[in-house]
């Protein structure tokens, strides 16, 4: 049978999209993810496309239940994002987004590390185009910083692969782990760090909050779906059950919510919230039991859909009003009721309300944490869950669509945007109401039911009292107002400290150089004045001497000769 790797349709379509315009291009772009999904469904588990380079056996396509689920997810995400961006007339953005989605699929089905590396770099290369597509000075610079970090991740991956291949003489992309204390652990750590950068581990997270909010309204929807989820997949494939991940994940779930509360740019709030959701997945991977891995993967699936929905609704607001800062928005529900409702569905899903998608996956990670004795981690995750509702569930819809009336009377976004958001919202509800459909696709078999009385009740209690805290703080006017501002984060190190230090260093060198030159000049000048002063009109060499004093001089010289003659 003729087998086509999932990334090929996207790459071919991107090439064709360069030459066609208008409705043929739109048709092509919608058809690709649909046909691709059918292709993947028919392919099923298995592998093909073996080739060898320099004695290494490489494998272009290797599918098991884990990669297949991510494959389905990426097709669905691509379809939604493509429909959302159908109104665009921007060849660069449309071609880049097709290539980007294709690269993600290539990475997920890569059977060996070298193939993974190629698609890893392609992801960086194609996604930065979506940032630059905004065509502003800020987006250009944010894109450069984004690209630098992504390339750094790629280089680390390549270095790690070289070390790993030397130690294990195999390039298979399987369980790598950190435990192996013998030779080659260097490579394992480098690969871990490469995945970590792409997964927005703490201290490496600012590329995400920096670049995603600077992309175009449609570009951010693509960005939020692929890069970080490829990293989650890679971690789940290579480092399941690595305990370090539990603590990294708990940190990721926790600290961004503080930033999200005080951030003004609503898409940046969502970017911080994206890190928070990644934290849950990373904890799940770190625990590593079948329930935990299932939970992490299921949560990745749901997160792509509901985070995409939230980014789409904020993209619609940005598209229609030209603004995205909470301090400038408000009262939009009056003229954008459909967008408001769709945004609220996304908000309910990310907050894990019963009957919405977040509920059925987040609970798996939570219960895996407590079953495996991670009590403190569980408490942190519970706090993070309450915090998610606070900043993503309430803050986003409240400040955009309600709060004080900003006086903006923007219309609903174009139909294709509404359709894309409706598909995502329908998926959120479908998975929330009938989770078994998603569960049946998960990597491990399991019997898990999220809808029992205890779980529903406790979750509702948690969420309603988080909301009560919001209401109480708002009524008491204790809630921090949205302020036009920038909040310092780790990025300050490389956006302010390092450039300033470099500038000061260069300025210091120049100042030193200038001072040295000036000092030398002054010495020369002084020397010259000292010299010339003797030849000036009053100078000792220019004076007209008296005859008497000249005779006296000659007598003196003769006297000296006389003395010398006697002393002989």
């Amino acid at each position, binding site marked *: 049978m003729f087998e086509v790797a999932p990334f090929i349709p996207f790459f071919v379509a991107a090439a064709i999209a360069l030459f066609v315009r208008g409705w043929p291009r739109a048709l092509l772009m919608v058809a690709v993810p649909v046909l691709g999904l059918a292709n993947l469904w028919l392919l099923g588990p298995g592998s093909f496309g073996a080739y060898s380079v320099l004695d290494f056996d490489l494998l272009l396509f290797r599918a098991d239940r884990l990669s297949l689920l991510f494959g389905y997810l990426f097709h669905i995400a691509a379809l939604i994002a493509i429909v959302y961006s159908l109104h665009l007339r921007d060849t660069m953005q449309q071609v880049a987004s097709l290539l980007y989605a294709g690269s993600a699929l290539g990475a997920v089905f890569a059977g060996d590390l070298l193939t993974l590396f190629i698609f890893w770099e392609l992801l960086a290369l194609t996604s930065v185009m979506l940032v630059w597509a905004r065509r502003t000075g800020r987006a250009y610079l944010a894109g450069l910083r984004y690209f630098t970090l992504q390339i750094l991740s790629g280089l680390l991956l390549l270095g790690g692969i070289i070390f790993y291949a030397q130690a294990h003489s195999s390039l298979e992309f399987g369980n790598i782990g950190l435990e192996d204390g013998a030779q080659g652990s260097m490579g394992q750590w480098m690969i871990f760090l490469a995945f970590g950068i792409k997964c927005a581990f703490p201290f490496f997270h600012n590329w995400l909050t920096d670049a995603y909010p600077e992309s175009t309204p449609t570009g951010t929807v693509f960005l939020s779906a692929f890069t970080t989820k490829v990293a989650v997949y890679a971690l789940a494939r290579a480092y399941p059950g690595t305990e370090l991940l539990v603590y990294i994940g708990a940190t990721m779930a926790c600290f961004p919510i503080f930033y999200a509360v*005080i951030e003004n740019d609503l898409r940046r709030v969502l970017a911080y919230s994206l890190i928070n959701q990644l934290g849950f997945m990373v904890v799940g991977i770190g625990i590593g039991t079948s329930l935990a891995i299932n939970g992490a993967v299921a949560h990745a699936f749901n997160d792509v859909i509901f985070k995409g929905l939230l980014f789409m609704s904020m993209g619609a607001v940005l598209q229609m009003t030209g603004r995205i800062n909470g301090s400038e928005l408000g009262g939009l*529900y*009056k003229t954008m009721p459909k967008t408001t409702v769709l945004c609220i569905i996304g908000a309910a899903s990310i907050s894990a309300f019963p009957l919405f998608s977040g509920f059925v996956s987040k609970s798996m990670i939570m219960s895996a944490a407590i079953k495996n004795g991670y009590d403190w981690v569980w408490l942190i995750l519970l*706090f993070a869950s309450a915090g998610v509702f606070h900043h993503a569930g309430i803050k986003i819809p409240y400040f955009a669509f309600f709060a004080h009336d900003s006086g903006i009377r923007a219309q609903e976004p174009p139909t294709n945007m509404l359709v894309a958001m409706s598909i995502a919202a329908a998926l959120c509800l479908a998975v929330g109401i009938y989770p078994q459909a998603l569960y049946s696709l998960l990597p491990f078999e399991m019997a898990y039911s999220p809808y029992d009385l205890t779980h529903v009740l406790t979750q509702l209690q948690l969420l309603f009292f988080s*909301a009560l*805290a919001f209401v109480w703080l708002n009524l008491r006017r204790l809630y921090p107002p949205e302020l036009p*501002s920038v*909040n310092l984060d780790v990025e300050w190190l490389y956006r302010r400290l390092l450039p300033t230090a470099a500038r000061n260093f260069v300025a210091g060198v120049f100042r030193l150089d200038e001072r040295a030159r000036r000092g030398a000049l002054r010495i020369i000048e002084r020397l010259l004045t000292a010299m010339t002063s003797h030849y000036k009109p009053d100078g000792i060499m220019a004076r007209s001497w008296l005859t008497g004093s000249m005779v006296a001089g000659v007598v003196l010289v003769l006297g000296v000769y006389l003395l010398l003659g006697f002393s002989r």
Partner: protein
Amino acid sequence: MSGDKSDFFDKPANIRLMLRVFYGICALLVALDFVVHRHTEFRWEGLPAFYPLYGFVGCVLLVVVAKWMRKFLMRPEDYYDRVELVESDSQRGRGDV
């Protein structure tokens, strides 16, 4: 579409009603805690009204700490731009922001 006066959330009476329903649900949820027997896995989970208290206190703490963080993290909106954009513009010779 934009009947400015007639919108639902512009009327204080509607807001009051919604808040009252909301408080009612909150009270009901706490009351259920004493009626329903929850199965618990964690030692603190069994405490009465653990989840409502944790949610409320957690969120208030979150906001208080975040507000306090503003004191040393908040900078003017153009904090980075006024340095970075000026430099890049002078390098590239155009000034689109």
